[in-house]
């Protein structure tokens, strides 16, 4: 009798706070299940943002602030100590809310208490796995379905007007309230203890890959295939991994500015097409005084399709910091072999140095 009055008063109080979280008497047991689930999962009335209980409001507010991007061990330990306190408070609150449950609810309550104790241990133990995923609310169930609220609600609400229905529904909402709060606390601990450190490691990998593709030398498909084939073993381990330390260069068309030795006019330079026949560009190395200096070298051929002399010249280029390349090549220009000095700063920008009028005339003539 006393329990019925308490439950009725509780329902009235919920109504007074806001109709959104109120549970009216439903038509049947299934309707009660749907109602509790809806208020839990959609409206967020229990242990989530729309929970007006003092416990939920306090804990959710205290969990909210995020630590700064760079965390000290002390700051992480403070979170752990706070989380331990929160779990303790949730446990105390749940014990009070679930005192003297009906026989239908006793196994559920005992399981919940047992899991709460485990959660506290996981939070308190530094290296323990924080099993936050078990505390996700499913189809009104927790712990992989081991704690299912639907069945006891249906039993309690076999007759929708029975006092056992109101008390059962009230207890179900308390279980959800405390379950959701534990989930929020464990997610917080998980994030500080595991997700943030793992995230930083993956960021380091990602930045290396960004560097490889953005700052490293460009690769044609066949070069990508070659370097990938050499890298394949890492891929087969099915783990996230950093890029290779360098890039093999193979038959790589490009361009450079050439200076012909002995020319009188400083303006007598021109762009020359080159093909890097084979080479290697080291991006990083460990334990070397030059480890922060990307360096590469290629054997090259210059390509000239004008009528004078050989079409190909032969030489080498050195690549510095992925930005500068200097080299030399020798070609028979028709009047004997000449050495040309080659410089490339930004091969893409070189396009702009070619006579636009020539380029356009050539393109239009081929249409």
């Amino acid at each position: 009798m006393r329990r019925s009055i308490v439950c009725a008063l509780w329902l009235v109080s919920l109504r007074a706070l806001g109709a959104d979280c109120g549970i009216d008497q439903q038509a049947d047991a299934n309707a009660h299940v749907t109602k509790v689930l809806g208020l839990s999962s959609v409206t967020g009335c229990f242990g989530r943002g729309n929970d007006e209980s003092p416990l939920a409001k306090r804990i959710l507010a205290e969990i909210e602030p995020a630590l700064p991007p760079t965390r000290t061990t002390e700051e992480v330990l403070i979170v752990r100590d706070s989380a331990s306190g929160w779990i303790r408070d949730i446990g105390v609150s749940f014990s009070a809310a679930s005192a003297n449950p009906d026989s239908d609810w006793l196994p559920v309550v005992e399981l919940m208490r047992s899991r709460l104790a485990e959660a506290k241990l996981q939070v308190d133990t530094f290296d323990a796995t924080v099993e936050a995923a078990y505390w996700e609310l499913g189809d009104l169930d927790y712990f992989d379905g081991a704690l299912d609220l639907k069945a006891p609600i249906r039993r309690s609400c076999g007759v929708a007007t029975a006092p056992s229905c109101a008390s059962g529904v009230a207890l179900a909402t308390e279980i959800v309230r405390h379950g959701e709060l534990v989930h929020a606390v464990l997610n917080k601990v998980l994030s500080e203890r595991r997700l943030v450190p793992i995230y930083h490691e993956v960021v380091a990998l990602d930045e290396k890959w960004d560097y490889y593709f953005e700052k490293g030398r460009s690769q044609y498909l066949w070069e990508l295939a070659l370097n990938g084939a050499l890298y394949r073993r890492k891929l087969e381990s099915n783990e996230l991994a950093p890029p290779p330390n360098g890039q093999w260069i193979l038959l790589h068309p490009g361009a450079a500015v050439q200076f012909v030795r002995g020319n009188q006019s400083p303006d007598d330079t021109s762009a020359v097409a080159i093909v890097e026949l084979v080479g290697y560009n080291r991006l990083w190395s460990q334990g070397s005084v030059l480890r922060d200096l990307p360096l590469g070298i290629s054997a090259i051929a210059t390509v000239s399709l004008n009528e004078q002399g050989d079409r190909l010249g032969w030489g080498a280029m050195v690549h510095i910091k992925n930005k500068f390349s200097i080299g030399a090549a020798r070609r028979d220009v028709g009047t004997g072999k000449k050495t040309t000095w080659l410089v490339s700063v930004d091969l893409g920008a070189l396009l702009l140095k070619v006579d636009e009028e020539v380029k356009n005339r050539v393109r239009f003539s081929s249409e």
Partner: protein
Amino acid sequence: MAKHIVFFVHGMGKHDDKWHEPGLEVLRNVFGDYDAFRGANFDDLIDPVPVVYDNLIETWRQKMSADFTAFRAALIGGMDPSDISKLGSVNRQLDKIEGWIGAGESDFVWSHAMDVVLYRFFSLVSMAIDVSVSRQILEKLKSGSFLTWSVLGHSLGTSVVHNALNSLYGTGLEGQPPLNVSETRPRAIMMVANVSRVLQRESVKVFESRVQPGPLSAKRMCGFYLNVRHRLDPITYPMPFNPDLWPDASTFATSAYQHIQPSHLHLNPDEIFKVHDFDHYLKNPRVHVPFFRALFGASLIPDPEFTAVRTQFDAAVQSSNLDLARKRLEAKLPAPSANWQAIIDVIKKLRS
């Protein structure tokens, strides 16, 4: 208030950080059709996160293209400008090479088909993408402020989702053991236009990897695996993701694994390529209801309501135009025994 995070991982072609919005809008619009969600604000419950990775492919392509353009310009610039015939001949040959290596203006086939080839066969590209996707997922999760998180992949994105998650949960990083499913795991993995099997790597087969649905006690990667393949989407036909008794008989019998095969056509006969579109898939209740149920609880959309919505949806799509669209699509369906190359052929045919 903490929400359900939903990661949207795109497929082939060009995508920006708004790519997911048509599909998201479909979900937002249908959300209120269901009794349990009436009056609830979709955006208060779902935190959508677009995951974009084609910038990596585009960076690679642009750098390579710049080098070839410079080579071409220098080669042409060094020729006699009065020899028009020779200039034209060289230009035409360079055009062909430029097109083949993808250094020219990106056309549809190159931007779509080559994404598939690059991700599947070029390990440097695929690893860079897997790392980038993992980073984007962790970037959102690291706040710890979420109820659940789920991943929706579309087309090539289904392969990316599979590989990235499989690797993320198997990688021990400096001072940290691999992520554990009992710590956190996706509530649902929804593979829309699932091509993860035909694009699977030799080293990790999709039916044997970590990416499986089921209970936490069995260390399964996700609570729900929603495998979505439209019956008339030719891209999902080669080596279809269609397991039996997967990952095991008892899980297969539950809703943890669902093979969803819609057949609706909300398109004109002249736009049959839209059968593969992300938002086209999501319109069908057979596709979005299992996802809502996974997130919020199956009891919130009971079977009678689901049946009624399906019936209403099916009745709304009857049209004489659809027979023509259906015939055109049926003519393009490759054999299930076909391999990944059939996908490239289909991409070309759908756009022709």
